[in-house]
């Protein structure tokens, strides 16, 4: 059980960390100053959520190590043998990350960034709504706090989808292209992995397939208002939650982890 439980927490944390990092790449480059601040706020919210989940995961990892089970080498290197939020974020390799492929997709233009946020926030909204009832008090508390943030992310990104979809000819076309590029990564959100099913069976987590209908309804409503077509079934790309990532994650991690890898234990 312990391993699935930790994997589940890492999955939740990785989703937030990687999307937060992607959004942070907009810092100083937003299309207007006010939106630059908005997307950076969202990046910080997501990284904050990731920290909460990592901290709890680290606590469980250290607990199980003290109990004598085998160590995971990559989690304690350079940090005095104890797992921490930092070792989990900075010292794991690509295949150990359990974020959905959607979250690691590149920003490209504002339309794609907005759509990625909208698709993910819709999912995260229904996920956290359910996680508030988790039998694990820490998860329920993180979900309750984060849901307030995600409610705003969803509102903000929904309005941008509508604004761009129902905007000019060019903005509409950019949204169509964004849908074409990102839709194939939405299936993975609802495809349960072993650790998710295990977490759900213990009422600690949620079986994501149970969120699909609500998510589809939300996306359909917003797309309709945005005059965007709801896509037909396409072949979905999956694997991120199992550690099978695109090359994009390597670049993110090179950026994200460089400092701790090059100068272990450095502080500022």
């Amino acid at each position, binding site marked *: 059980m312990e391993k699935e439980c930790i994997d589940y927490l890492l999955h939740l944390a990785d989703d937030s960390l990687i999307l937060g990092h992607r959004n942070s790449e907009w810092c100083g480059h937003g*299309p*207007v*100053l*006010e*939106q630059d*601040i*908005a997307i950076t*706020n969202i990046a910080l919210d997501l990284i904050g959520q990731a920290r909460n989940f990592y901290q709890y995961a680290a606590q469980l990892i250290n607990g199980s190590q003290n109990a004598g089970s085998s160590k995971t080498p990559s989690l304690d290197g350079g940090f005095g043998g104890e797992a921490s939020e930092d070792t989990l974020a900075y010292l794991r390799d690509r295949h150990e990350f359990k974020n959905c492929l959607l979250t690691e997709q590149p920003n490209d*233009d*504002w*339309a794609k960034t907005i759509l990625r946020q909208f698709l993910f926030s819709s999912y995260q909204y229904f996920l956290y709504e359910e996680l508030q009832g988790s039998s694990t008090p820490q998860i329920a508390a993180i979900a309750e706090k984060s849901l307030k943030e995600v409610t*705003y992310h969803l*509102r*903000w990104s929904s*309005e941008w989808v509508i*604004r*761009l979809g129902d*905007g*000019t000819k*060019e*903005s509409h076309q*950019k949204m169509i292209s964004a849908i074409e590029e990102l839709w194939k990564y939405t299936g993975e959100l609802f495809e349960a992995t072993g650790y998710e099913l295990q977490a759900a069976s213990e009422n600690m987590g949620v079986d994501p397939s149970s969120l699909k209908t609500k998510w589809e309804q939300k996306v359909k409503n917003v797309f309709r208002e945005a005059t965007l077509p709801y896509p037909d079934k396409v072949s979905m790309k999956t694997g991120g939650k199992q550690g099978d990532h695109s090359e994009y994650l390597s670049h993110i991690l090179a950026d994200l982890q460089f400092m701790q890898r090059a100068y272990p234990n450095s502080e500022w």
Partner: protein
Amino acid sequence: MNNFFRKSYYGDIPEDKGGGDQSKQPSKVPSNGADLGEASDWPLWEIFIRSKQGLDHKHMGSLHAADAQMAIENARDVYTRRMEGISIWVVESKYIHASNPDDAENFYEPAEDKVYRHPTFYDLPDEVKHM
């Protein structure tokens, strides 16, 4: 790179940037996402925030937005991220009419020698507190 930032002084908002001329319709979206110069299509909004303890909305500053809804959300992101407020008002800058600095002499100076307008010439009973 085009001009990213553009200064507007109060009472000095250029007509083409949201002041005066109301016939010009701003576009709903920037026509080129990467070009901040396009943001000047968006009108300027004045932002008023009421803090937790405050009874009234206070002017915080101004920002650009395509419409009122976006202005409120931008204000939320720009001006309330450090717990400054619990209520937001926005008003398009072009609807603010300002006094002319040239009028200062006849507007404000005549009040300078009229101290009797302050209610400081009354003897207050001790029972009256907080005056």
